[in-house]
């Protein structure tokens, strides 16, 4: 399973409670669409740290890195490349 599929499945399963892929666009903003709240984003960070063995620093907790499936995919790829 690709990183994008893993991230998408995690969000679908834990915040939208569905496996319907069409329920979540790759660029859908979690904040604007009310998909995840402030505690949900902490769970997403734990998931990323566990699954992809990356450490999300406090100052990396910004929408540019975390606010959509695509943003997360790019962020994780960048972190893993370091």
């Amino acid at each position: 399973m690709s990183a994008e599929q893993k991230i998408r499945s995690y969000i679908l399963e834990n915040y939208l409670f569905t496996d319907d892929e069409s329920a979540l666009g790759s660029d859908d903003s979690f904040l604007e669409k009310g998909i995840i709240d402030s505690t949900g984003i902490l769970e997403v960070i734990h998931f990323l740290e566990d699954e992809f063995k990356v450490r999300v620093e406090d100052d990396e907790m910004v929408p540019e890195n975390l606010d959509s499936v695509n943003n997360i995919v790019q962020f994780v790829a960048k972190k893993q490349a370091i």
Partner: protein
Amino acid sequence: MANSLVELLLNSVEKYPEKEVVAHKDRRVSYSRLWEDACRVAGYLRDQNINREDRVGILIENSPEYIAMYYGVLIAGGAAVGLNSGAKARDLVNWLRHSGAKWLFAQGSHPELAEVIKALGKEITVVCVGAPDAQLDASTYVKWEDSIGRTEPSNSIGNITNSNQVAAIIYTSGTTGKPKGVTLSHRNLVANTLSIISYLELQETDRILNVLPFHYSYGNSVLHTHLAVGGSLVLENSLMYPQKILQKMQSEKVTGFSGVPSTYALLLSRTNLKEYDLSSIRYMTQAGGPMAPASVERFTRELPHVRFFVMYGQTEATARLTWLPPEKLVEKLGSIGIPIPGVKIRICDEHDRPVESGVTGEIQVQGGNVMLGYWRDEETTRTVLKDNWLHTGDLAHQDDDGYIYIDGRSSDMIKTGANRVSPKEIEEVILELEGMEEVAAVGIPDEILGQVIKVVVVLSPGVDLSKRAIQAHCHKNLASYKIPKFIEFVSQLPKTSSGKVQRFLLQTESLKN
């Protein structure tokens, strides 16, 4: 004393017409502009023949429009019903029907609006703010710019005939048959606003960064108090990215911040406060449930120049009931403090007799801020307003100096984040699923939110239902903070000999699956 919040706002408008009152995204609105918009809303409602105390629903996220609509409704003599914008259609419909609202001012893009309009049909006139959702049938609503935007402002407050008139209804629970609508008078709102201003020592130089929803009593009080002193509000509608909040505090040079325990837990766990210049901040307030004393201590250690106010209250008392003076924070750590000006508090046993200091009893209160009652529900009102005292259901004791310490709640309500959730609401929604025999919802401890929701489920024999199916049903029908985090399947619920579910056992024997 002023008779209504309108008078307090007008006073600020006259004193500081060109001063910025609210900043939201890239918009900055002055007092005179806010007043003009509020008067347009009032003019629109007058043209529509609003009567005094007619209810108007407001389903908009925190924004200058929300404030103009709320005050516009008050100016016209109506009652503002601020609705939780995170709620699902069934709650919204239930609240709007129960309140008997004739108008709904809504965010055009609200994902539940199409369903709300479908359910209510001609029962209600809908005015949309912002671009409407593509699913909305254009014949079922009017746009703000085509209605309110074209109305002549009306600043007559002739419809506010006395201060005991209904000014607002705040719904604290919903899904089950009888929603609880806390009904507040103009007098209630004014009394609590002036009292909070006095102990926080708010003034026109104060500028708060507000993350609390205005439909919620705490957020509502932050709004009114800052408008009444001629202060200003910087609105941020999400805490998802705490760094952004701190950056905003720094760049906007705010003087104040209000949060619930989870707000502060988040800031402490995911930011480094010392990296930001927060020297402009004069005060911070905390309410909405108990905050761990260790977190309070850490916060004040990291920001020693900030006056940190621990407070306690209830929607039934408009918002605020007690405050802990910051200079007593260390000495009385863990206390919710003393009554705010104008409020009387007593701690009583089960026969409503005051108890001695050190003894736990129920907090009962009196004051100009105590609600008129629950909207259209005299029976429930009678259970909490007895002999001129509001029975809060909160258990506490006082020390010898009169400082109050919360010991628990006498009800089964779950407190997650700052939201009070009735277990019954969740249970009734889950019981709608086929094959569900019994269900019980409880709150279990959580580091950030205080409590999260766990449900314990008994399925009918031979039924196979997944955790996800239950959560998906809740997601469709309940606001996101009411969706159970943990679900446990058992063969039977623990009960007393009289058949009552022993909820405390479900809490303590948590499996946290």
